[in-house]
C-alpha cells in the first residue's frame, strides 16, 4: 500500500524571475513543480531552525503597513530630542575630546578591583 499524505493547495504571488527559474528547473530535471516547491519550503524551514539565533543578523526586516506609516511619520516629525539623548551626545563628545579618558577613569578602578589590584 502506498502511503500518501493529505495534501492542500496554496497559492502565492512571486516574482516573474522566480517563476521563470522554477519553470527552467522543472523542465531541465523532469520533476513536478509541487515536489520542488514543497522540498524547497521544507529545507528552508529546517535550515533556519538549525542555525543558532545568536549567529543570525537579519538584515532584511519586513514591517507592517502601520509600522511603515510610523516610520514615515517619524521622518516627518520635528520632535525634540530627550534630555537623555542630549546628555549621551555630550558625553560622546567628551569621550572623543579626552581620547577616551572620560570613561576610562570611571571603569579602570572597577576592573582593577575585580583583578584584586
Amino acid at each position, binding site marked *: 500500500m502506498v502511503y500518501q499524505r493529505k495534501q492542500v493547495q496554496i497559492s502565492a504571488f512571486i516574482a516573474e524571475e522566480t517563476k521563470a527559474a522554477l519553470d527552467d528547473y522543472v523542465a531541465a530535471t523532469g520533476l513536478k513543480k509541487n515536489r520542488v516547491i514543497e522540498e524547497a519550503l521544507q529545507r528552508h524551514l529546517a535550515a*533556519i*531552525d538549525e*542555525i*543558532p*539565533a*545568536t*549567529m*543570525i*543578523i*537579519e*538584515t*532584511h*526586516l*519586513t*514591517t*507592517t*503597513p*502601520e*509600522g*511603515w*506609516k*510610523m*516610520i*514615515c*511619520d*517619524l*521622518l*516627518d*516629525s*520635528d*520632535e*525634540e*530630542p*530627550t534630555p*537623555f*539623548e*542630549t546628555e*549621551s*551626545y*555630550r*558625553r*560622546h*563628545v567628551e*569621550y*572623543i*575630546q579626552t*581620547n*577616551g*579618558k572620560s*570613561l*576610562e577613569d*570611571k*571603569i*579602570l578602578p*572597577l*576592573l582593577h578591583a*575585580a583583578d584584586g589590584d
Partner: protein
Amino acid sequence: METRSLLREDRRADFASGEPETDEFFRRYAGQNQFRHHIGVTYCALAEGKIVAFATVSAGEIDPSLLPEETSASLPAYPAPVLRLARMGVNELIQGQGIGRELLQSAVDIAFEMRARVGCVGIVVDAKPQSQGFYERSGFVVMPVTSRVAGAGAPPVRLFKTLKRSARVVAAARADYTPADSLAAEMRRRASELGLSADEVRSAVDRLLG
C-alpha cells in the same frame, strides 16, 4: 581607552557580559561574520588593551510588507536603508558606567557616515526586553516586524530611530564638537586599526597636506 573595529588577533575568549547568548555570539560568531562572511562589523571598546564592550553593526533595510494606502512625501514605498545595531555587550563588571551609551553614539556616527556614502534613514536595534527602556530613552520606538525570527529563544524587540532625530542632537551641540574633532576621532580609530605609530600618522598627515 579607545573604540575601534575588531581585529583578528583580539582576544575574545574571556569576554563576559553576564548574558550567555551575547558572549557566545561575540566569542564564536563576531569574527566569522566580519572576517569570513563580511556581513557585519564589530566595534570594540578597549581599556588597557582589553576588550570591555562590543557592538556589532551591519547594513540593512526595512521593507513595507504591503504598500500603504497613503504614500508619504518623506519616504517612497520601497525598502529603506538602515544601519542595524544587531548585538551589544558590556563587561559585567563595568555595566551602568556609560559604555553602552558610548557604543550607541559610535553607531550613530557610523550611520551618519553610511548616510553620506550610500544612504541611510535610521538605525534599527535588536534589543533584549531588559534593554528596551534604554533604547526608548535614547529616542528609539518599537517597530513591528513581520519577518520570521530564525533559531531558538525569545525574539528580540526591534526598535527604530531616525537619523533626522540624531542630527538635531548633533546640530544642537555643534559648537562643542567641531568637524576637526570628528576628523581627529576618525584618524585615531583608523590609526589604531592599522597599528600605526605616531610618526607614521604624522607622515600621513604631511603627505595629505602636500
